[in-house]
């Protein structure tokens, strides 16, 4: 059972996440209802760099911050993460301890810019669970672009 305290220790106040998402509303207007993005802590989930990505296959129940498109906006909610195989998200972001702390502290600011920077610096890994066409159809292009993620291949 995941408690609110446990969740807030990791991600901070969920209401602040919701305020942040409301501020960035335009970014999500083209996204299909039901589109979902998840955040988990790398340490908690066991998806550790330099070791094995155990969270990929091993079910570990940890809190996941989920963003879900509903009622014309993006809602923040807390769910359980029990490994990648069973998770129901389109995009999963796995944040290390530094990234989680940074996000928690910068919730009042331009969080998407912060997330973009953390991805670029390797503090946040991301995985996609839908292919390009599905993500395009679901209206993800603007959101992915805002995070600096290469929508197409990025052989560089």
């Amino acid at each position, binding site marked *: 059972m995941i408690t609110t305290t446990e969740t807030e220790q990791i991600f901070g106040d969920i209401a602040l996440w919701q305020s942040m998402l409301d501020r960035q509303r335009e970014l999500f207007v083209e996204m299909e209802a039901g589109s979902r993005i998840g955040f988990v802590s790398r340490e908690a989930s066991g998806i550790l760099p330099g070791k094995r990505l155990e969270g990929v296959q091993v079910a570990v129940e940890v809190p996941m911050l989920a963003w879900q498109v509903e009622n014309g906006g993006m809602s923040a909610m807390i769910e359980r993460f029990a490994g990648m195989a069973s998770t129901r998200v389109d995009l999963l972001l796995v944040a290390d301890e530094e990234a989680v702390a940074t996000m928690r502290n910068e919730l009042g600011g331009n969080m998407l810019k912060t997330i973009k920077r953390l991805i670029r610096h390797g503090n946040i890994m991301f995985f996609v669970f839908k292919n390009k066409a599905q993500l395009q159809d679901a209206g993800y292009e603007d959101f992915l672009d805002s995070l600096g993620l*290469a929508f197409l291949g*990025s052989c560089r």
Partner: protein
Amino acid sequence: MTKPGEAKLSHLFQPGQIGKFKTKNLVKYGACCVSNYNGRDGTITPRELARVRVIAGTGCGMITNQGAYPDPLGEGKSYFRQVAIHDDKFLPQFETIARYIHDAGAVAFQQILHAGRYGGIDLGYCVQPSVVPQTLPHFRPPRELTKAQIKVVIEQHADAARRAIRAGFDGTEITSFMGYLLANFNSRFTNQRTDEYGGSVENRGRFMRELIDAIKQATPDNPLSVRLNGAELMDRWGGNTQDESFELMQQAVDCGVEMISVTVGWQEAPESSFGRDVEPGYWNFLSAKAKKMFPNVLVAFGNRLPDPAMANDCIREGVFDYWEVCRPLLADPELIHKAAEDRMEEVRPCIGSLNCLSRLFRDLPYTCTMNPMLGHEVEPEYHVTEAKEKKRIMVIGAGPAGMEAAITARKRGHTVTVFEKADKIGGNLAAYASNDLARPVDLHSVIDYYAVMAKKLGVEVRLNTEANAKFMRSVLHEYDVCIVAAGARTDMAVFRYLENSELLIDALEVAHGRVKPGKRVVMIGGGMIGLTISEFLAKAGHEVTVIEQEKRIGGDIMPTFKWRHTAWVDELGIQTVTLAHLIKVSKEGATVKTAKGEEKFIPCDSVIVSSPRKANHDLFYEFQWMVDELHGGGDATVPRGLDAAIHEGYRLGVRI
């Protein structure tokens, strides 16, 4: 007889040997990327054969034919029109390719490419050692290979190798570059298996060792090359460290491969491995390490190493044995011949724009910014042939489009004069090159090339000569053809109704260094030009805010380099406001209106306008009754980028 360049680059041009096969020099044509010129079922097309004929003639001692997928289902197929080698029905065309290579005096290798994580393009899934989801949406969701399937994959590789040798190839190559199946097994990022194929480096390397053994048994008399990462650039995400990468190389060496080809990076790696922002020679240390560790095995290397002189030095210093080169030969297939003849100044430079890869990731055939002929070898219309009627051609504008048209037309026997209003050639490219944060020298090398070729071919270039109606009257009937390649300009007229519009600065004036903006700058337009100048200014200490009408900045930048610009924007602290347009300008700053209708004042000292751009096609109307043939090319028809300018200039040059 030794040619002058061969004497200068004596290490590069010395003969070599791989297995029992002698090579005439130490240059290996690398199978750097697939062409996408072939049938959807993997059959080789006439377009491909014409292209391979050019590759065969590059003068390389060893030529690796592009990667073919080895399985009938296409799980290993990574690109839309990739070549297949899983059936004897493909043999005749591979025989033709092997013959082309041998006829040119080179040793022929066939690469077998199972793309693993990046494969399954027609299937909607890919196969991997473990189910590790994708980090790039371009690729397909993964399925885990069973042990029985691993055996099948290995046997398919052995069959493919056997088939390649039957077709007449001398050796084969397997590849982990850049994140394909071999890399997926080797890397702890994608290999999460708990059986004997996963876990320790020893176990992760088992697939590779079994693969090498199977191919060696299938083709015991033929050498095998293995492309392996010296650095994956995936270690921050849990991939292999460099030490592990070299441990895996050691395993390949212990299995008896004849050549290790050292590569760098995965497609999804978060940093550059061979883009224009990477200094040539940057990765040479990886090859040097491999050569030191494996002195008795041939080491090939070429990542971000476009210069034959540097390659020659590397061979002399024991950094590698074979210079593995591909993209510079896409840009100029004559590179090795020109190096041998000491004519390096005549080489069309590879500028690392990665247009080739940008196209592949749009499922298009690859092309090259610098080489308009690439991919059109099969079409007679693209070949430079002697003109039946020699004409007197005037070209207006000495930018890339005009210079390309001029030298191409001159090669065909026309008399060509270029008129340029500035005091040097290069047009606006020269200005933007000076503002480029990646490697200005790459862009300047394009201009240097045109200057050399114009002089060599006898193209007259008249600088400080502005073409207008009066000028045309003065040269009336002196020319049969006029090519307007006068480029594009910033469309300042769009803002003429704004109060104080005289305060606006044309981005071209800033790019050319004719106007120095103040400390705080607002840049109107977040496309390639606006960003390039903004980045340059921000690096020089200006505070820059970019205003873009579209939803995103960098919309006209190639996918392989867009990330670099957006990263610079962040790193340099450039502010961006999208979905907004300029509505007021004053000495105190700029006011923009957002899509929501909100007005926002941005204090600044200078407002620079980089967008919209307008083609300089006014001269068409001026000249249409003054010359027999009138053509337009490059930005003077529609403002675009460097590749469109060069390609259009060439197409005009070969058809007039």
